[in-house]
């Protein structure tokens, strides 16, 4: 891969100076802990010098969530035909109810369950334990929602601390109810971020679901699964049609708008296509080891990356698919050109800084670049070393890389680099908007979407243009 062209005004020396100045304002111990997480990009360095997946420094405003958030909000929650029980006190279930925008088909309360099921722990449950209550709860849920295809139990902090055995309850109830009951020990205090929640969830899917089902039809040569797409704002519904158009059969989706039995039969597909590497690479590796299923990372943000990905996918199949891919690329080229013709003239030469979960900063860079926008800083809430290794080549030399960046640091960086757009989360959004800086929420597409695929790029381009070129920003400074 050729190195990104340098960005005017961005040098390794300037970036390192900025980092040094920012750290100097922090207490010595905190600065020492934070220093390894900040760096100037060296595209060819491997491993990437920025450290990740370490504990949050207490007292700094981190944007991270917890293992429960990763398990319920990201992995399990989007499976539409299961009842997902937030087991523990009220808070976690309420805050994670409907706030990640993982859209799903079905009839709510009948065939899909985009709801908040919780055991609403009270003090007596902490004192006497909640196992009995959990059994009763699962019976009640199954009776009231009979078309559920299974249930998951997502444990909150107190459940693990008081030593309740949700695994035993799940086993017992699975036998009693005759359907899947899956325990997931994803207490929020485990690990250092959402990331461990993904891993724990993946393990529970591995142990309880995968391999337990089979598709009714014979397995075909073009059967694939989509791994790590959570259907935020309809992303899956924009990605799946492209794969189908090139002749592949998407047999199951993990886990956006997902169906549990189809997830349980994924081991029959010919290729796993993984989008969010961070949250689900474990599963691809499991299926590779146990069932010999190859896997491939792909990126459907922006036409350049879509084309690259489609060609890489085609390489795994025969000439029919290869021909289809070229046809699809040719078909959408003029469509994408129309989008570029409309928006690129207004966006060329702008810069943006990104701070999102564990994938999007590196995956969306191509889409911004398609629009002529350069990325001057990027970082992740909960990425690991391999994510940063994949990021370095996507970024220009000397750009800022920041891991688990605190609000204090990000503010300083933005103040200095003056990007035309910041793409990050809800907690950061208004901080930067008050400062008059255009912003898009890149966890939730700011209540828009989809952003994946050809359909998604149209929406992405419109949204980025809308954010950067909104006349409202010109009103921020008053004339008097």
């Amino acid at each position, binding site marked *: 891969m050729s190195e990104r062209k340098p960005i005017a005004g961005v040098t390794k020396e300037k970036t390192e100076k900025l980092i040094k100045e920012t750290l100097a304002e922090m207490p010595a111990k905190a600065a020492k802990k934070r220093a390894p997480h900040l760096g100037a990009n060296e595209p060819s360095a491997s491993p990437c010098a920025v450290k990740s997946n370490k504990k949050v420094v207490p007292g*700094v405003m981190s944007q991270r969530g917890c293992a429960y958030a990763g398990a319920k909000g990201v992995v399990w929650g989007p499976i539409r035909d299961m009842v997902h029980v937030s087991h523990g006190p009220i808070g976690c279930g309420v805050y994670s*109810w409907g706030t990640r925008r993982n859209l799903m088909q079905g009839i*709510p309360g009948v065939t899909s369950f985009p709801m908040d099921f919780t055991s609403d722990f009270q003090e007596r449950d902490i004192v006497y334990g909640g196992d009995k209550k959990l059994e*009763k709860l699962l019976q009640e849920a199954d009776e009231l929602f009979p078309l559920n295809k299974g249930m998951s139990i997502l444990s909150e902090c*107190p459940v693990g601390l008081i030593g309740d055995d949700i695994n035993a309850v799940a086993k017992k109830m699975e036998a009693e109810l005759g359907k899947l009951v899956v325990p997931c020990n994803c207490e*929020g*205090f485990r690990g250092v971020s959402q990331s461990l929640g993904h891993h724990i969830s993946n393990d529970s899917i591995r142990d309880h679901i995968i391999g337990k089902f089979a598709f009714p039809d014979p397995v075909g040569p073009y059967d694939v699964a989509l791994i790590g797409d959570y259907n935020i704002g309809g992303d899956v519904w924009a990605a799946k049609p492209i794969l189908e158009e090139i002749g592949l059969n998407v047999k199951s989706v993990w886990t956006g708008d997902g169906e549990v039995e189809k997830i349980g039969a994924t081991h029959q597909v010919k290729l796993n296509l993984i989008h969010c590497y961070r949250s689900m690479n474990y599963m691809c590796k499991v299926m590779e080891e146990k069932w010999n299923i190859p896997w491939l990372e792909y990126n459907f943000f922006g036409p350049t990356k879509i084309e690259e990905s489609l060609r890489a996918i085609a390489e795994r199949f025969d000439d029919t698919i290869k021909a289809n891919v070229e046809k699809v690329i040719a078909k959408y080229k003029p469509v994408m050109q129309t989008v570029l013709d409309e928006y690129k003239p207004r966006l060329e030469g702008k810069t943006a800084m990104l701070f999102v979960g564990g994938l999007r900063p590196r995956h969306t860079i191509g889409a911004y670049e398609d629009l002529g926008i350069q990325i001057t800083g990027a970082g992740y809430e909960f990425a690991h070393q391999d994510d940063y290794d994949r990021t370095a080549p996507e970024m220009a030399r000397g750009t800022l890389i920041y891991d688990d960046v605190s609000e204090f640091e990000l503010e300083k960086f933005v103040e200095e680099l003056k990007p035309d757009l910041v793409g990050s989360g809800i907690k950061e959004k208004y901080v930067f908007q*008050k400062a008059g800086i255009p912003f898009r929420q890149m966890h939730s597409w700011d209540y828009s979407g989809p952003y994946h695929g050809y359909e998604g790029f149209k929406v992405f381009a419109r949204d980025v243009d809308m954010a950067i070129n909104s006349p409202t920003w010109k009103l921020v400074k008053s004339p008097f």
Partner: protein
Amino acid sequence: MSAEAAVKIVTEHSPEEIARVKEWINTEEYKEKNFAREALVVNPAHACQPLGAQMVATGFAGALPFIHGSQGCASYFRSTFSRHFREPAAATCDAMTEDGAVFGGQNNLFEGLENAYALYKPKMIPVFTTCMPEVIGDDLTAFIKNAKLQGHLPEEVPTPYANTPSFNGSHIHGYDSMLKSILETLTEGKSIEGKCTGKLNLIPGFDGNTGNLREYKRILELFGIPYTLMADISEVFDTVCDGTYRLYPGGTKLEDAAESVNGKVTIALQKYSTTTTMKWIEETYTGEKVTIPMPFGIKKTDAFLMKLSELFGKPIPEKLKEERGLAVDALTDAHQYLHGKKFALAGDPDYLIGLVSFLLEMGAIPYHILCSRTTKKFEKEMKALLATSPFGAQGKVYINKDLWHMRSLLVTDPVDGIIGDTHAKWAARDARIPLFRIGFPIIDRVNLHRNPVVGYQGAVNILTMIANKFLDIKDETCEDQWFEMMR
């Protein structure tokens, strides 16, 4: 299921089966089953204690809310406030993890306080807990004392703290505990025999409507009553966009809060979210102390104004008299659009009391009234309120029930509209009735938190929202021969 269990074939539900269940969940039989639930809670309309504590902590000038516990909780509270107010919600956390569970969270607290103080330079650090330190039994009193003794935080930085586990009460109780602790800390040693500031201490209670707080302040300014609004989030969660981000944009001044102990009068406008605080204030503060209902609708606003007038010996301002007249004019003009209309309501106890009172004034019928976490005392008070009007005769009160119960009520015994926060939108959609968004959180509509729903102006605002929606529905759904220019 053992690892060797037979592989099952992927199945689909038949359309007939789906149709059957779809109908079944709207039946009386289902409702009965639904109400027989003992363990399962589905779609509750309440949040947890620390969220309320954070709201209070945010409402004091220069205060940095500090969460002792796990990182994820902090993220959830901050997101919730940012989604509702569309504002930054600064708070920090000491990010306890597994080792905290084993060794306790004291080291996290030490390091956290040190960093938070150095980085964000707060004037006060209110500390509150999440479930984790509560379950393992962290001793906040000792920890905070040690933190100061060992120099992790200067002695003079006020550090009030509250125990706010999620497994007790709800967000309104966290509000109560944190407020009491802050006032306790700030007023310590400030009580001066015989001194009176002449000021009113106004405690609004858990209120996500910044417009309400601004309305209280406007009313007091019209009266010319000097006041201290406690935990004033209106300048924190509703701030200017002028190119500068301010970490501490407003809030109750710490010196004003400290002086409140010598105030002339203390009024709490929510009973259920200020119980502990007011009990403590009764014992500690000089001056008069009263708890009165939120001024929803005309009568409760009248009562609020008369109380102010009586306590401060000031006449009701002409401007407010005129506003009353204008509001009553609006209510009489539009009474026909609400009269006899049935409503379901879900929300916090103090909001429900106020809203039901308003509906009764309008000749509307509060029909299903649901509070997803509260007490028998509330149930009794609500029933007494319903008994004051013939329009309350049909009202039924449901305590500690959730919005899935509400759904059953709506589909088996329909109403014309539901009043509640965003969470009620699912039940409203299934029942095909409009949701009038009043309460917290409102995360799917803009600006509603800026419009007051209390006071005379608030009554007009609620009326406008409800009546016009009913008229919209009529225009959108009536047959052509009933489509008219005038409504």
